[in-house]
């Protein structure tokens, strides 16, 4: 199994390190043609404006949309989550629109409000995970087909819609590979969605 990590800008090396730690192969993706030979893609954290400009410049948009339509999973962290989102600040993006969420960019404020926090992730069994939020976005709302997997401060911080997974925090910045393993199980079709957990989290959020 080979995972591609979009390497236009940002923390792509950390994701590659994590994937290799999970005993899967990982390659850097800088041009759209390189998407053909991979089984799943990670869009890393970085500066979403920078990465989006480079994605457009090198004609990634249509290729990434057909990649998703082919059923292969995509995991976006932080900036990656923004790039995959349908809406930013209530406005439909002219970008990938691959997951039905509305995000607010840099929603916690300047860097002094970046933080570590312990959250509970539904793997689907609930487990504690130390999440690192760096100038992170907030997921303001999610569509009816989007499954919440983790909550923090009454907002969703990790959600999934079919083959698209996003987190607003950075699992690649810790040595904890459980979320990367979850993503690899999505590729193997071994990670089913549990609707019971979904309902539970939706009720929890006020």
């Amino acid at each position, binding site marked *: 199994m080979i995972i591609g990590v979009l390497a236009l800008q940002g923390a792509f090396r950390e994701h590659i390190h994590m994937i290799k730690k999970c005993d899967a192969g990982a390659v850097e993706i800088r041009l759209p043609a390189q998407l053909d030979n991979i089984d799943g893609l990670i869009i890393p954290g970085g500066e979403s404006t920078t990465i989006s400009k480079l994605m457009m410049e090198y004609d990634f948009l249509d290729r990434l949309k057909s990649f998703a339509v082919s059923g292969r999973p995509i995991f976006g962290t932080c900036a990656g989550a923004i790039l995959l989102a349908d809406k930013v600040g209530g406005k439909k993006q002219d970008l990938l629109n691959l997951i039905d969420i509305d995000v607010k960019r840099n929603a916690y404020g300047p860097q002094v409000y*970046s*933080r570590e926090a312990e959250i509970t992730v539904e793997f689907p069994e609930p487990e504690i995970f130390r999440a690192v939020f760096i100038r992170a976005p907030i997921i303001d709302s999610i569509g009816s087909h989007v499954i919440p997997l983790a909550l923090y401060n009454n907002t969703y911080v990790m959600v999934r819609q079919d083959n698209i997974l996003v987190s607003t925090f950075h699992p690649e910045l810790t040595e904890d590979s459980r979320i990367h393993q979850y993503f690899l199980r999505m590729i193997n079709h071994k990670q089913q969605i549990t609707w019971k957990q979904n309902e539970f989290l939706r009720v929890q959020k006020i």
Partner: protein
Amino acid sequence: MEKFGTLEVKTGLAEMLKGGVIMDVTTPEQAKIAENAGAVSVMALERVPADIRAQGGVARMTDPAIIEKIIESVSIPVMAKVRIGHYVEAQILEALGIDFIDESEVLTPADETYHINKWKFTVPFVCGAINLGEALRRIGEGAAMIRTKGEAGTGNVVEAVRHMRAIHDGIARLAALPEEELMTEAKNLGAPYELVTMVARDKKLPVVNFSAGGIATPADAALMMQLGADGVFVGSGIFKSEDPAKRAHAIVQAVTHYNDPDIIAQVSKGLGHAMPGLEISEIGEVNLLQFRGN
């Protein structure tokens, strides 16, 4: 349960900037140009290093009013410089909500002996270094990111190359030393022993290392990336050139595709004049910024 300003949160922001270009700007308009060109961050300044060098006088932290206007004008993180050792300037920048502080030799040093104790701050710091010992001293003081100093405001990449090579040579040397020699090497480097053993083991710095000081063309930027930089700072090189927007855009492409000569060739075409450069030997040693703080 929530923790702010931890090492991971500070170095984490530096990790997110990797593979990117950080550009010096002096106005909100320039900041927008930088953001539109794909900069990962901007450095808010009153004067770019080339002007500081030309005009002389004491160079201080930028007027907070200018910094605030620049923060409001862009969504990418904003950095600003403080004088070496001037921790009150750093307190002011932290209060303003700056995302990263550069304790910089480009400004006139406030303290000739001591740098800022950066552990006391929630906001992360980047510091300059010309060799491994200096880099590790700054990390020991709490820097979350290093940049090789180069020679700011010259448009001459030769010092940036020298410093990047010096750091990588220093790392290679540590990695090759037997363990019993590391304490003496720490003494010789003037660096904390724990960091020396960490670098010897990991064969890399424990924080992100960008290149700065003299980068003026896409080729310069790609050269520094191939030499092992995690990203680049471009100071005077953009807004002292003939067509800043075009050059900024080209340098961003060159940093992403630093190993692809076809793309670098394509983006290097027709950029207009680069900033006029300075030959290092003509500057005179007393005017070199790189030896401020060590």
